[in-house]
C-alpha cells in the first residue's frame, strides 16, 4: 500500500508502529491547540461546555495512547496495581508526550481514593493567558481527558480534574491533576 518512489511522502498510516519517538514542533502543536479551541468555542454556549469538549477530545487520545504504548512495549503486561498504573501515567505517558516525567506524583492525605500529579510548566497552557471574562477555564482539560482515557480503558475508573495551585518560590502556579478513583478500584487494590 506504500506510495513510495513517486516523491509523495508515505502516509502516516503506513509507518511501522514500533518506530516511535518522533518530535513535533511546540509551535505547531500550540497553533493546532488554538484551532481546536476556536473550533469548540463556536459550538458551545459556555465555558464549562468548552472544557468538557476538550476533555472528551483528550479521552479518545488517552484510550489510543494506552493501546499504542502496550503494543510498542512487547514485554509489558496489563497493570493490575493502581500504583504501577499511576507511575505509568506520571512517567511513561508524560515522557512520551512531553519529553520528561511529571514533576510529582502524590497520594492525598485526606482521601484514600485521591492522587495528584503535578507539573510546573504545562506545555498545553504555556502560551495561554485566559482573559478575565472567560472565568476559570483551564485548557489543561485536554490533558485531563487524556489521563482519564488511559485510566478508564485500563479498568481503573476515575474522575480527573485540573487545578492551578500557587506554589511558594514559583512565579506561575503549578498545574495539578487530581484523580479520584472509584471505590471498587481502591478496594481491589488493597487486597
Amino acid at each position, binding site marked *: 500500500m506504500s506510495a513510495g518512489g513517486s516523491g509523495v511522502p508515505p502516509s502516516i498510516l503506513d509507518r511501522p508502529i514500533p518506530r516511535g519517538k518522533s518530535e513535533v514542533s511546540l509551535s505547531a502543536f500550540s*497553533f493546532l491547540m*488554538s484551532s481546536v479551541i476556536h473550533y469548540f*468555542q463556536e459550538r458551545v454556549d459556555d465555558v464549562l461546555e468548552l472544557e468538557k469538549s476538550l476533555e472528551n477530545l483528550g479521552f479518545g487520545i488517552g484510550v489510543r495512547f494506552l493501546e499504542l504504548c502496550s503494543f510498542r512495549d512487547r514485554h509489558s503486561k496489563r497493570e493490575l496495581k493502581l500504583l504501577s498504573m499511576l507511575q505509568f501515567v506520571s512517567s511513561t505517558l508524560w515522557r512520551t508526550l512531553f519529553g520528561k516525567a511529571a514533576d510529582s506524583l502524590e497520594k492525598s492525605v485526606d482521601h484514600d481514593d485521591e492522587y495528584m500529579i503535578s507539573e510546573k510548566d504545562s506545555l498545553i497552557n504555556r*502560551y*495561554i*493567558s485566559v*482573559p478575565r471574562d*472567560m472565568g476559570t477555564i483551564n485548557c489543561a482539560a485536554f490533558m485531563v481527558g487524556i489521563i482519564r482515557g488511559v485510566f478508564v480503558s485500563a479498568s481503573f475508573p476515575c474522575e480527573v480534574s485540573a487545578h492551578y495551585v500557587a506554589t511558594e518560590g514559583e512565579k506561575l502556579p503549578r498545574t495539578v491533576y487530581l484523580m479520584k478513583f472509584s471505590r471498587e478500584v481502591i478496594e481491589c487494590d488493597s487486597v
Partner: protein
Amino acid sequence: GHYGRGSTNAHTHTHTMAVFSLYVVNKAGGLIYHRTFVKDVRLFDDNTYLRVASTFHGMHAIARQLSPTKGSSGLSSVQADTFSMHCFQTLTGTKFFVVADLHARDVESLLQNVYEVFVDYALKNPFYEAEMPIRCELFDINLDATIAGYNSKVL
C-alpha cells in the same frame, strides 16, 4: 503636539541607553498595545497614545514611498535630540516601535526578541484575536522581563 521634544529632561536624566516605551500597531494603523518601562518619563492620556501610533503609521508609509531606493521598508529608526525611535515591521504589517534613549544600541535585536514574545504569548494564545488590543497576562510578564533584561544590561 510635540510628543518628542522635552519628554526627557536632560538635567534629571537617569536612564542611559535604555528603552522607555513600546508601541504595537496593527496593519490598519491602530494602536493595539502600549507600555512604558521607566518611571520618571512623562505619561499621556489614552487618546494621545492612539494619535501617536496612527501618526507614526502614516509617517512610516510615507517614508516608504518617498524613499529613493526601491523596495524600502519604511522608517526603521528616528534620531531626535533627546531620544531615538526604532521600528520593526513584520511581514503581516504589524509594527513594533520603541522610544529609547538617544544612545541605545542593538535595538534591532531587542525588537526581534519582543516580536518573539508577541508570537509566543499573543499569537499562540487561542483567546487573542488578531489585530485586536493585546490583553494577555503572559505577554506583559515576558515583555517586562525582556525589556528589563535589556535595560539592566546597558546601565
